[in-house]
C-alpha cells in the first residue's frame, strides 16, 4: 500500500511561548510493498512521523495519504498495523489472546480469530507458548508476540517504531531475519524506524536519513543486494560499504540542522 506524505509539519508546545518544530515540511513518496528504514539522530522526529502516518497524532500542516486515503487522528485505516518500542502485550491475556485481540476488537468470530492467531503464532515460532502469559515470556518472545499481533490482521502497511532496540544482538538478528521472511511472504509496505544502521541495511530496500530537529530529509538511498537477504549478507563488502556510507550521512545529519 503506497504512502504519500506531503508538506508534513508538526510542532510540540512544551511551553506555550516556545513551540518546538519537530517536522518542518516532510515530503515522502513510498511505493507499495517497499521496505523503508527511517534513520536519524535521537529525537529528530522519526517516531513522530510514524505516529502521524498511523493516525495516532494530528499534524500541524500537510497531509498523509495511505493507499490514496487521507489519515486522520482516531480514524484508523484497517490496513495499518503498528509495532511499538516495547511489546505492549496485555499482561492479563495469554499470548494467543493477545495475538487475536485485533481481530476480536474488529468483531471477527471466535473460531476464525483463534485459527488465524494460531497460524500467526506458528509463523513466529511461538506455537508452543500460546497459553503462556507475557510475564512468563522472554523479551524476545514478547516482541515476536507483538509482531504476530501486528500481522494477524494482514496489514498492507506495517509501521515499526524501534521494536528491537532493547534486545541483545543475537536475538535482534534473529528477529530481523524473521521480519525479512515475513515481508518476503506478504509484501506489505514497511516503515521501520531504527537507530541501527546495520539493521537498516540488512532489512530495507531504501534508507531515508533525517536531520536533527526540525527534521528534513538529508539522504535517501536505495539499498540493493541482488543475492537476497541472508545472514551471510552481513559479511559482504558491499554491505559494510553501505553501512559506512549511511554512517557518513548520519554524521552530516548530526552536524547540520
Amino acid at each position, binding site marked *: 500500500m503506497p504512502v504519500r506524505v506531503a508538506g508534513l509539519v508538526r510542532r510540540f508546545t512544551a511551553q506555550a511561548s516556545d513551540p518546538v518544530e519537530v517536522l518542518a515540511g516532510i515530503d515522502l513518496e513510498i511505493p507499495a510493498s517497499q521496505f523503508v528504514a527511517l534513520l536519524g539522530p535521537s529525537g529528530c522526529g522519526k517516531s513522530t512521523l510514524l505516529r502521524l502516518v*498511523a493516525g495516532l497524532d494530528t499534524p500541524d500542516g500537510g497531509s498523509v495519504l495511505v493507499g490514496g486515503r487521507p489519515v486522520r487522528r482516531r480514524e484508523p485505516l484497517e490496513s495499518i498495523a503498528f509495532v511499538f518500542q516495547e511489546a*505492549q502485550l496485555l499482561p492479563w491475556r495469554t499470548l494467543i489472546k493477545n495475538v487475536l485481540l485485533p481481530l476480536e*476488537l474488529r468483531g471477527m468470530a471466535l473460531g476464525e480469530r483463534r485459527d488465524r492467531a494460531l497460524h500467526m503464532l506458528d509463523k513466529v515460532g511461538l506455537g508452543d507458548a500460546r497459553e503462556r502469559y507475557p510475564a512468563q515470556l522472554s523479551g524476545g518472545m514478547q516482541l515476536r508476540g507483538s509482531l504476530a499481533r501486528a500481522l494477524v490482521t494482514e496489514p498492507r502497511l506495517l509501521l515499526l517504531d524501534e521494536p528491537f532496540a532493547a534486545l541483545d544482538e543475537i536475538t535482534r538478528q534473529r528477529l530481523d531475519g524473521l521480519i525479512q521472511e515475513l515481508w518476503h511472504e506478504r509484501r506489505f509496505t514497511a516503515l521501520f524506524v531504527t537507530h541501527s544502521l546495520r539493521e537498516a541495511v540488512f532489512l530495507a530496500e531504501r534508507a531515508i536519513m533525517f536531520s536533527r530537529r526540525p527534521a528534513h530529509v538529508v539522504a535517501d538511498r536505495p539499498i540493493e543486494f541482488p543475492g537476497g537477504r541472508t545472514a551471510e549478507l552481513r559479511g559482504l563488502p558491499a554491505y559494510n560499504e553501505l553501512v559506512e556510507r549511511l554512517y557518513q550521512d548520519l554524521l552530516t545529519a548530526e552536524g547540520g540542522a
Partner: protein
Amino acid sequence: MTARRLRDFAARLAPPLCAALAMLAIWELGVRWANPPRFLFCAPSEIWRDATARAGELGMATWKTTVAVAWGFALSVVVGVASGVILSSNRLIERALYPFTVILQTVPLVAIAPMLVIWLHAGVQAVSVCAFIVSLFPVITNTLTGIRSIPKPQVELFWLYGARPWALLFKLKLPGALPSIMAGLRVAAGLAVIGAVVGEFVAGELGADRGLGIVVVVAAKQGDLPMLFAAVALASVLGIAMVGGVNAAAYLLMHKWHVSQRPD
C-alpha cells in the same frame, strides 16, 4: 499439590498465631501478677468467660455489623469504580469533580452521621451509608490512578483497531487498573468496618438489633471492660476477614499474571 498447599498455608499461619498466643499469655500473666482493679484492666480469660456467657448477644451484634459493612463495602466498590472510570474519562471532569471527592476523606463521619439519622433513621441503612462514605475514597483514587497508569501505547493499540468505548473499558481499562483497584479495596475493606462501628455510635439501632458499635458504647458506659474488649476483638476479626476476602479475590483474579500474586 493440595498437601503442599496445606503445608504452605500452615507455614504462613503459624508465625502470627504463635505471636498472638505469646502476647495473650504475657497479658494474662501480667494481669494475674499485678492484679489491677477490674474497671481499669482485665485478663484475656475474663474476656473469654464473659464473651462466651453472652455469645448469643455478641454473635447477633457481629452479624448486624457485618451486614452493614457488607452493604457499605459493596456500594463503595460499585460507586467507587464507576466514579473512577468517569473521572478518568475526561481531564475536565476530573479537574471539576476530583477536589470534591477529597471531602469524603476529610469530613468527620460523626458529623455526618446525625444527618443520616434524620434522613434514613437510625438503623442498618444509615450505618451502611457510614461504612460506604468512609470506604469510598480509596476506591475512587485507586481506580483513577490505575486507569491513568495504563501505558499509552496500549490505549493507542485499541484506537488503531477501532475499539468501541465499552471494549476499551472492559478489555483494557478495568483489567489494566485491576491491581490498583484491588489495592484500593484492601484499604476500603478495613475502613468499611471502622465506618460501620463508628457509624453505629451515632446512627446504630438500639435494643435487640444492636451492632458491635452499640455494644461498645453500652459496655463503655457501664465500665464493662471484658465486653468492651470482646466487641473490639470481634470488630478486628471482621476487619481481618474483610481484608482476607479482598486478598482471596485478588488472588483469584490475578494470580496467573500479576507480580503481586506470585509466591516469594
